[in-house]
């Protein structure tokens, strides 16, 4: 048996996988209950959030805590574009809707893309000053910027409807939209990481001084990674808004809490791995849903136990801290789940060894 799979085999296997996943989605969509379908959609959305953040944090080594800001930008922009004009007039009670939103309505796809672009533009503007800072300061600066975005959302009533948020956003997101965007994100980011640019980004993560000495323009490459991550964050925001059908500008929904959630996903999955990010996103979605039972009334040994709200996140955060202490590399570490790794596991399993 050959040591490594050829490029052609890789390609065929990947196409087969995508086909298989699509078949699975088709099955899920047709046969499972609405609740499960929504969770599957959510996994796709979380996947886009996670992959976009792992490009910035895990692969390029930029410790950004501002991701929720870009997600929010994508969410608001696209929702304001897809809601019908009548709907907007009805929702905006405090201040009338500003131009251009008061006269524009777009279909889902262009609205999502515009959401991504708006997020990318802001990534550029925010990255420009922030990326000049080092490690911890960069983290706080990006956190600060995402908070500023949220506070602006709370106050610019004619654009965002202020503290009331947006409601009755058309529920466009289904498994197809979310998973297709996930595929696009993975293909784009994966292709970038598997190129010379990806090597450069990793080099920046490993040792900035040496990377500069090898001719890499640190600032430009970091900005590049930041903007691409921001773009897909915006896309995920749009998908999220049209899944949730509301946007609420409080800290706990699109504020820092959201950034922390995505951070948890990529840390558990493996900081620096795209497949890890998806695994982390899936685990997060499934665990938070599964742990919901902790908040329902239940019987333990014939004792009635009334559910406690918030127990999920408590268990979750405890798990997270323990993972950080005992298992900081996460599930995948920095490695990717490639056909080659599976193949070599199979080979070793069947007792063959050419080494």
């Amino acid at each position, binding site marked *: 048996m050959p040591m490594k799979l050829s490029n052609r085999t890789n390609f065929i296997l990947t196409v087969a996988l995508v086909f298989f996943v699509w078949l699975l989605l088709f099955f899920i969509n047709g046969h499972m209950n609405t609740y499960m379908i929504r969770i599957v959609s959510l996994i796709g959305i979380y996947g886009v959030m996670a992959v976009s953040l792992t490009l910035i944090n895990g692969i390029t080594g930029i410790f950004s805590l501002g991701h929720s800001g870009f997600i929010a930008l994508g969410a608001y922009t696209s929702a304001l574009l897809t809601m019908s004009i009548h709907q907007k007039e009805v929702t905006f009670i405090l201040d009338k809707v500003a131009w251009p939103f008061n006269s524009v309505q777009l279909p889902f796809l262009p609205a999502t893309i515009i959401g991504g672009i708006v997020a990318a533009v802001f990534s550029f503007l925010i990255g420009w000053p922030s990326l000049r800072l080092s490690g911890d300061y960069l983290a706080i600066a990006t956190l600060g910027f995402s908070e500023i975005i949220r506070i602006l959302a709370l106050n610019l009533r004619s654009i965002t409807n202020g503290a009331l948020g947006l409601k009755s956003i058309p529920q466009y997101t289904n498994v197809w939209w979310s998973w297709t965007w996930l595929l696009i994100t993975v293909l784009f980011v994966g292709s970038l990481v598997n190129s*010379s640019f990806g*090597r*450069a980004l*990793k*080099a920046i993560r490993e040792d900035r001084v040496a990377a*500069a*000495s*090898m*001719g*890499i323009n640190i600032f430009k490459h970091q900005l590049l990674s930041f903007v691409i991550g921001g773009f897909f964050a915006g896309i995920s925001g749009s998908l999220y808004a049209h899944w949730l059908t509301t946007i609420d500008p409080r800290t706990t929904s699109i504020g820092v809490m959201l950034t922390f959630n995505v951070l948890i996903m990529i840390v558990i999955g493996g900081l620096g791995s795209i497949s890890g990010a998806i695994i982390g996103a899936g685990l997060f979605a499934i665990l938070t849903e599964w742990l919901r039972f902790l908040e329902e009334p239940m019987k333990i040994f014939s004792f009635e136990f009334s559910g406690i709200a918030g127990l999920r996140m408590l268990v979750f955060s405890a798990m997270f801290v323990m993972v950080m202490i005992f298992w900081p590399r996460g599930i995948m570490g920095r490695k990717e789940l490639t056909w080659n790794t599976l193949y070599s596991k199979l080979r070793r399993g069947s007792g063959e060894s050419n080494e």
Partner: protein
Amino acid sequence: MNEILKLDHVTMQFGGLTAVNDFNNHVREGEILGLIGPNGAGKTTVFNVVTGVYYPTKGKVLFNGLDITSLKPHHITHVGISRTFQNIRLFQDMTVLDNVMVAQHHEIATKDAEKYLVKIGKSKYGANSTWFWRSVFKLGYLRREKEMKDKALNILEKLGLRKLAAEKASSLPYGEQRLLEIARALATDAKLLLLDEPAAGMNPSESQQLVQLIKWIRDEFKVTIFIIEHDMKVVMGLCERILVMDYGVLIAEGTPDEIQENKKVIEAYLGEEWSHVAE
């Protein structure tokens, strides 16, 4: 002979401390020039000024006649100067091959930033940002990738590291790590290599091999070598000309024989009582 690098009265001060004081010398094209001196003499600072890490308080740095004093480190590499580090700075989590391949990235990623950079060796593949999109969408990119990979493997082969190509850089033995740093610097297509203590931590037989290797690299790759070293056997066996620094000042210049008999040099290393040895 062409002066490939000229340090024109370079002074580097950090607040009250003068690390390099009026350093005025040059590197001739094709030579192997050594820079020695006691610890703290300012040798690495000279390297850092040349490579753009520091901007000199006074003076200029010229590369092939071009003023590169104010260029940032990544521009210095575009221009054709590369370096290794005193404390190994490999990309630890990346493979040996990737370490060498990433050194070639600047050729496809650079937009012509400063006009005068264009005058120096243009990359065969043009330097522009469309390569970003071509990399992502893999349009004509795979061929380029293969060329970079072949070139990287070639360099690794020449330095005896080919077998380790798929290993993580962090897993390499110390001596091989130092060689990898040199391989990486070569892969940038540099014309001038600054080697900062490449023999540090090597045993005598390894350092002898290094001497032969560096001489061979100079001939094979047609580069100029500027080397900081503490191991005197390496310095004397390798360098055609030697500069000696002490307390930031250039105190002597000459061939290995001349330097060994130079009173000031002996004083700098061993103290004044020993200077009579030279007489």
